[in-house]
């Protein structure tokens, strides 16, 4: 990594292109938070690359004064894999949506996670297809009425957190457009992780799916409906921090802190896959009675899995231990003969 000589500021990451998202779209906040934190990461601007697929979110690279590629639908993950494999020196970011990464790009998404190159995924989840004007997406709730599902969608939705954990992702987190501080914190944590960071961001599409995450983002309900996870801290939530999660064997239960001590609560451990898996399944419809709150923050980190590009480079270096290959020898092969 080259030394950063002059201190960058967020404005240095703003391009001269007019931002074309709908007014009020959650994408604006994400763009702002990313532009806010990049100067603090200690890297010169030219080392950042943003790769995107297709969709509203995928316009993102055009607005970032860094290197960028707006690729094709679902394939940003694959493009980023090739780039990072050959250029481990770069900081590579994937900007994608729920349709881009979980529908058309689902295959590449899970394979990226299992290979674990050191890249960051910002998955803008708005539970709808915005760019194509409002069809249901693979994260839309069942029964959703959209242009393509006038009688309600019959598809069961994907749970991106559970899917990522199942694909052996090494960093899995969730945040939301409406909480800038939390977003900045989670994205920075993702950047710091050596391996693929999967960051799901609840993003409001105010045109085609307005209020999809209202329960989690509105002040009136947020505290009761969200569970802000912090490593080493008990899982507490509720209007007056009056509720908590306790583990009864493998079974999570919501308890009232008026009759249960904080000391008996489940202490969040980001390195525990089993517990992360349980938390990842807190995916209830908030309208359901006795539902669990929706967790936000870092579910899981595994720092032991060597990133893909490191393994690839190690193999390359090992092969070159006895020096670079000799092209003349390669071409001649083992057996030659002379014709006079």
């Amino acid at each position, binding site marked *: 990594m080259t030394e950063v000589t002059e201190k960058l500021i967020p404005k240095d990451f703003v391009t001269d292109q007019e931002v074309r998202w709908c007014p009020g779209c959650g994408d604006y906040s994400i763009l702002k938070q990313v532009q806010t934190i990049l100067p603090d990461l200690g890297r010169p601007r030219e080392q950042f690359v943003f790769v995107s697929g297709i969709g509203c979110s995928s316009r993102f690279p055009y607005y970032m004064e860094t290197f960028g590629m707006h690729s094709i639908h679902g394939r940003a993950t694959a493009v980023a894999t090739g780039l990072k494999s*050959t250029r481990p020196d*770069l900081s590579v970011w994937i900007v994608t949506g729920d349709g881009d990464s979980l529908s058309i790009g689902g295959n590449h998404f899970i*394979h990226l996670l299992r290979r674990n190159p050191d890249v960051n995924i910002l998955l803008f989840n708005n539970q709808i297809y915005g760019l194509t004007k409002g069809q249901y997406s693979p994260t839309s709730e069942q029964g959703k009425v959209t242009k393509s599902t006038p009688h309600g969608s019959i598809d069961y939705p994907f749970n991106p957190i559970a899917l990522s954990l199942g694909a052996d992702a090494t960093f899995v987190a969730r945040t939301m457009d409406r909480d800038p501080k939390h977003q900045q914190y989670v994205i920075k944590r993702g950047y710091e992780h050596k391996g693929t960071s999967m960051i799901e961001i609840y993003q409001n599409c105010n045109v085609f799916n307005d209020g999809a995450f209202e329960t989690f983002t509105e002040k009136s309900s947020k505290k009761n409906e969200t569970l802000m996870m912090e490593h080493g801290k008990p899982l507490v939530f509720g209007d007056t921090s009056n509720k908590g999660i306790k583990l009864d064997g493998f079974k999570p239960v919501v308890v009232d802190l008026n009759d249960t001590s904080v000391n008996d609560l489940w202490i969040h451990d980001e390195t525990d896959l089993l517990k992360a898996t349980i938390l990842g399944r807190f995916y209830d419809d908030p309208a359901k009675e006795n539902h669990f709150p929706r967790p936000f923050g870092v579910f899981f980190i595994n720092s032991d899995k060597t990133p893909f590009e490191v393994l690839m480079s190690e193999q390359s270096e090992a092969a070159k231990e006895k020096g670079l290959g000799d092209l003349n020898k390669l071409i001649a092969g083992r057996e030659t003969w002379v014709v006079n």
Partner: protein
Amino acid sequence: MTTAIDKDLESVVIRFAGDSGDGMQLTGTQFTNATALFGNDLATFPDFPAEIRAPQGTLAGVSGFQIHFGSTRIHTPGDMCDVLVVMNVAALKANIKWLRKGGVIIANSDGFDAKNLRLANVPEAENPLNNDSLSGYDLKTIDVTKITRLALTDSGLGVKEIDRCKNMFVLGLVYWMYHRTLDSSIDFLKSKFQKNESVMNANLKVLQAGWSFGETTEMFANRYKIAPAKMEAGLYRSIMGNQAAAMGFVAASVKSGLPLFYGTYPITPASDILHDLSKYKNFNVKTFQAEDEIAGICASIGAAFGGSLALTGSSGPGIALKGEAIGLATMLELPLVIINIQRAGPSTGMPTKTEQADLLQAMYGRNGECPVVVVAAQSPADCFNMAFESCRIALQHMIPVFFLSDGYIANGSEPWKFPQTDDLPEIKVQFAKERKADDPKFMPYERDEKLARPWAIPGTKGLEHRIGGIEKQNITGNISYDAQNHEEMTKLRQDKVDLIANYIPDLKIDSGEETGDLLILGWGGTYGALKTSTQQLIEQGYKVSHAHLQYLNPFPKNLGTILKNFKAVVVPELNNGQLVKIIRDKYFIDAYAYNKIQGLPFMSSEVVAKMKELLNA
């Protein structure tokens, strides 16, 4: 001791055929190596079964390997064979049609027992070894299995392992028949089985037993001598097409000073390029076996963006999947080589059989106006040249290039007077240079005289820019939906391809005069057959010439002139007429289409017959 009398021959065609578990491919390649080392010119044709594990003994499981070698120049693996080696009845049934009348059959009698007859659907009463159905041939029946087992009674190996040595008996015998030494195969077996001495010794023993059988039996009236061929002086090796392609790509990486990245997904018959490149990591080569074809090419696009010499490879079905990404690379204007080792299609088609039916796919198979450069190799050794060329064009013109080969030349082999590194041209590549804050703003789509844009790789200060699949303004690269701009950009991308005609060699007449009655215009792997046919026709007094296109988009600048110099033009292809369509379209000539779509290469005899029919019409 043998009473066989030596006979001199100019050339011979041998076909080894057996069950896919019988090791016929290995036998064929071993014989090929020894023959190449001896100094004969040669061409080979492996004929694989479609299924790797087809039921043993059945027709579907028959694997063949044909070699044509001689003291003269050899350009094809031969139409009909002179000697047919068959390990079982299925192999005989599947291959007898390729044996010339009066040819020699060497049959392993054990492979004609009741079980094998049943598996090959031959009634026991009609065992071809026992009736006179083979009376038109010179049949030599040998119980290879029995002799092999006898030779290895004390080897300590199990019957299964012993039986796996049968092919070495055949190899030893054929070596004897053609006065080849066992040396190269002895070396090969010693190195292949160095970790398993008993298997090594068993194979060596059986190889020797095959040779000795020839010496002692009185079954053979003749042994044959084929003198070394008069070839251009120099240092040679034997090479297969896919091997040559992989080396050509590595050579381009060395000569451009760029690391090579190969993003791909396994597919027949392209996988050997992945296998080879993955062994060459000591040449700054990185290979990536992706989750699918799309990821393979997209990863390569990422690597190209980062400054690698990036390749992706597949066969027709995989290329279909890569189509959208090829369009992206065209819009991004990044260097990328797309390898297509063609096979018979459509869909899964016949994976192990050859065809040239993806030319139009390479030319036009994408959405929108999406021209890319297309080159094609014409022989196994030529895969090296055209692989190198495809990289040169991609890198110097910042453009995707199709490298076309086919199953026939990919797996076929020939002697190759290989180049030395110093003989190969440098491929000059210059990345865009770093900029200071007060330098004018970097323009990612500014162009040079070749219309190529700068290659501005991430990590270079001051070159931050965005590229994408959306239509863009020239020079700035900014998104543009402007009507005029789109038309201009479309024309510009076409011009960029067309301009490459200034940077490729002219087309040469390969055989024959510059003018005449008929021009045989070919492309790709049919080169050898068309050359041989043309030479035969010329010898017979016909005014025929042959030219072979290695550059298909753009065409060499002089193609139009060459076409005008002949009274008629015929375009023989292993497809339903593809190059011929483009020729008619571009040059408005009434080119004649001659097509074969059987998953098999042209035989020179059929080409000659067809050409005579045209000439005499």
